[in-house]
């Protein structure tokens, strides 16, 4: 029999028996209170007919086959979603169905697996960022930054934030929607040479500023100069919020070292596939003083009645199911399985592995940058310290270039022009440890052949 009937265990005989047990003459009777005007006929829904598993696999397979994917073509896109190597062990752990078929661990005694894994994840995020508290995850890096802005407004009782134009444009769009909804204001700090304009920043800060939002490295892959930033921000009583690339933190200063109060970011790059931009993993960590402002689930350590260590969801009075309209956030479902993947990834790599990955990103992107900007007409957009992404001004439109590269079985970089028209035609290239020298040389060769 075709269709998902094999998910439904009741037999017709059992259905009859159960109907009899509840004194109903037919299944239809169970829907008696639905107003007749809205009741659908048996064939009321116009959907494709049910298919067998074999047919569905073939249908989905043919849809997937219409996409050019990153295991097929080298891809130089970044801008928030990254192509990093995922060790086999990650998928094997997240594929254990005791984890992935569970829900939020409300019943702690039979959810110690998920709860302990969240506690371990929180600890690793704290150690990466230098913060003292972390939540169990948010939807993605963009919403994590928006939630940090909202939390900052709550913590400071102020109603506007400053965000650098060097923050990912998609993140700023999400920030805008979240802040606008609450009647909070967002002001953008202009760029100076691809980085946040520090001179402007000082003039824009005032007594209404809840937070300064920066990305590290920023959208152009440049490391922002953080010396003195926190001091200025704190002088105005505002918070410093950073959106960080967690892999960069193996080599670059932990945000705590330069005085950040909240650190958010995208954790997809820690063991999760790009998946067309979702599911991703928003991480959110903060100083201890902000613990009760943190949105979403938090796992905490405790003891059972026999003195054994165990873990529970804690500080739940922040949350929607207790506090309703006064909750710190409305979030309920989060990205727990992606957080599990991140924890497995970080534990598999350990300190040496994460440094090695970060080091390869740094070295390979420098190699690519030097060779690309040596091509006539390809000009490095900004000087400064890069991590794994860099912006290049192009001798023609990025759209054309990407079309050309696709013909050469390469997925090109991120088109910056729609977001930063002042740059003219420009592309953001991302080079991670997954790219071989041969592929990078192939990219340069292809670029040389364009125009």
């Amino acid at each position, binding site marked *: 029999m075709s*269709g998902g009937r094999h998910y439904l265990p*009741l037999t017709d005989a059992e259905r009859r028996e159960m109907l009899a047990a509840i004194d109903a003459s037919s299944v239809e009777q169970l*829907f008696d209170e*639905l*107003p007749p005007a*809205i009741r659908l006929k*048996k064939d009321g829904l116009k*959907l494709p007919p049910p298919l067998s598993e074999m047919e569905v696999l073939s249908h989905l397979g*043919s*849809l*997937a086959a*219409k996409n*050019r*994917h*990153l295991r097929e073509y080298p891809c130089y896109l970044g801008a928030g979603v990254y192509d990093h190597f995922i*060790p086999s062990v990650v998928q094997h752990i997240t594929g254990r169905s*005791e984890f*992935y078929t*569970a*829900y939020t661990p409300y*019943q702690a*005694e039979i959810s*110690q697996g998920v709860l302990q894994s969240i506690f371990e994840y929180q600890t690793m995020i704290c*150690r990466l960022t230098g913060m003292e508290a972390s939540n169990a995850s948010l*939807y993605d890096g*963009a919403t994590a930054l928006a939630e940090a802005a909202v939390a900052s407004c709550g913590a400071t009782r102020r109603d506007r934030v400053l965000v650098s134009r060097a923050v990912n444009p998609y993140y700023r769009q999400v920030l805008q929607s979240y802040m606008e*909804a609450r009647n909070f204001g967002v002001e953008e700090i202009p760029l100076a040479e691809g980085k946040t304009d520090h001179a402007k920043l000082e003039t824009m800060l005032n007594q209404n500023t809840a937070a300064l939002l920066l990305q590290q490295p920023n959208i152009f892959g440049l490391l922002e100069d953080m010396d003195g930033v926190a001091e200025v921000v704190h002088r105005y009583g505002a918070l410093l919020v950073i959106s960080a690339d967690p892999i960069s933190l193996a*080599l*670059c200063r932990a945000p*705590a070292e330069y005085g950040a109060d909240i650190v958010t970011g995208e954790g997809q790059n820690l063991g999760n*596939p790009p998946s067309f931009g*979702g*599911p991703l993993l928003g991480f959110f960590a903060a100083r201890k003083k902000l613990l009760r402002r943190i949105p979403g*689930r938090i796992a905490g350590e*405790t003891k*059972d*009645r026999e003195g054994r*260590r165990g873990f529970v969801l804690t500080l739940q009075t922040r949350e929607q*199911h*207790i506090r309703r309209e006064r*909750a710190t956030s*409305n*979030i*309920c*479902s*989060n990205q*727990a399985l992606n957080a599990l993947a991140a924890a497995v990834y*970080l534990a*598999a*790599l*350990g*300190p040496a*592995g*994460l440094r*090695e990955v970060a080091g390869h990103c740094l*070295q390979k992107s420098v*190699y690519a940058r030097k060779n690309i900007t040596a091509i006539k007409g390809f000009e490095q957009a900004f000087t400064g310290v890069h991590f794994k992404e860099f912006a290049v001004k192009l001798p023609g439109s990025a759209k054309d270039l990407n*079309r050309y590269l*696709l013909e050469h079985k390469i997925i090109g970089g991120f088109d910056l022009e729609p977001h930063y028209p002042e740059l003219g035609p420009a592309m953001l290239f991302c080079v991670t440890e997954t790219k071989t*020298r041969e592929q990078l040389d192939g990219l340069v060769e292809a670029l040389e052949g364009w125009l």
Partner: protein
Amino acid sequence: MSKEQALLFELGAPGRRGYSLPQLDVPEEPVDELLPARMQRKTRLDLPEVSEGELVRHYTALSTRNHGVDSGFYPLGSCTMKYNPKINEETARLPGFAFIHPCQPAESIQGAMEMLHRAELYINEVTGMDRTTFQPAAGAHGELTGMMLIRAYHQSKNDQRKIVLAPDSSHGTNPASAAMAGYDIKEIPSDKRGLVDLEALREALSEDVAALMLTNPNTLGLFEEDILEIATAVHDVGGLLYYDGANLNAIMGHARPGDMGFDVVHLNLHKTFSTPHGGGGPGSGPVGVKKHLAPFLPVPLVERGENGFYWKDDLPQSIGKVQGFYGNFGVVVKAYTYLMMMGAAGLRQAAEDAVLNANYLMQRLKKSYDLPYDRLCKHEFVISARKQKKKGVSAADIAKALLDYGFHPPTVYFPLIVEEALMVEPTETESKETLDRFAEALEEIARLTEEKPERITSAPHTTPVRRLDEVKAARNPSVCYRSDG
């Protein structure tokens, strides 16, 4: 007595590793030249150092300390913990779906866009709406998006409405989401039937009301049979009707929110459409709207043109973006797979079996527990342990006692309008034997409440840890491991 499971940080040894990477194949430059010393990390990077085998044993041990739908019955009310078909996992992992980047040129991702387009058409059909966005990453995120849409709609008419109504039985996310969208919340009481009190609703309605948020069937598992009157009343004052789709599973193929008069709908693909809950996520909370709200949807939308599918970005009235890209695409692949498997007939059958299972279980359990709203239920029902409470056994105790029988307990203490509430949602993927065994367990617990209540109040007895001290955890929070204690 079972042992504690060591933390990752208590395992391994310095220098041990669980990965391998290729040799660097480009000329290596001194790191100090690429990254000035003042920008380098000074803090020690204190991550676990374990071998791959140790890592696998650690997580395998953790997994055995966890209950999922695959482990056993999981009648967690309002969460629709149905079986998660394995084919879903396989399709979402196809490299053509899992390993594509959201910023790829449209011509290189036509299959993904086609899948989103088809999924939208089918979801529109199931809900009776005109357009759907998949950008919201979870149900609550869908609610927030829906509230933003409603706000943008009213504002486009220079109408600054301030109030959102929600029944006192509503999910906590409803008021929280409305508040995040800048609204004041007003609660509508439920009447004796457990349904929206129509009189109270009419009194609360005014031209300051932006929307009524409604779950139908509601969180008591009861169908709001006055829905058409409710819709008319809300629309008459210029308000909109918002559908919280958490409970759509009960009525798939039997009725559609769009036909009931709802203007905005969110679904939980991780509930109704069988995608796994992931230990807390990822979910997916698509939002469907009627035509008059479509101009405000988040950007971009997938459109079908002459040369294939493309992203439509130019929606001048759009609320913008609510997630970095297109939402939890991987979850949508799983839900689409489920839709393809089930078809219209399968969805309708699933709803029927879900409702039959719930009513069967309810009729049996009402003999041992109070049933405050004794009427036909849909996919779930709420019993009360107030009778047991008089013997010193609370809903929480009963939940913990169920753990010893190998069952995940129902949702407890929700909805808030039922004292000592136990909210049971069996779903359609459970067999009659499972329902009978579960009923026997609850009957035995009711019996023990009379005879040996301490057996119940001291439960659980067989789990890896005994009852955990939540008060201690909240009073002195430890949310991050410190090796120095």
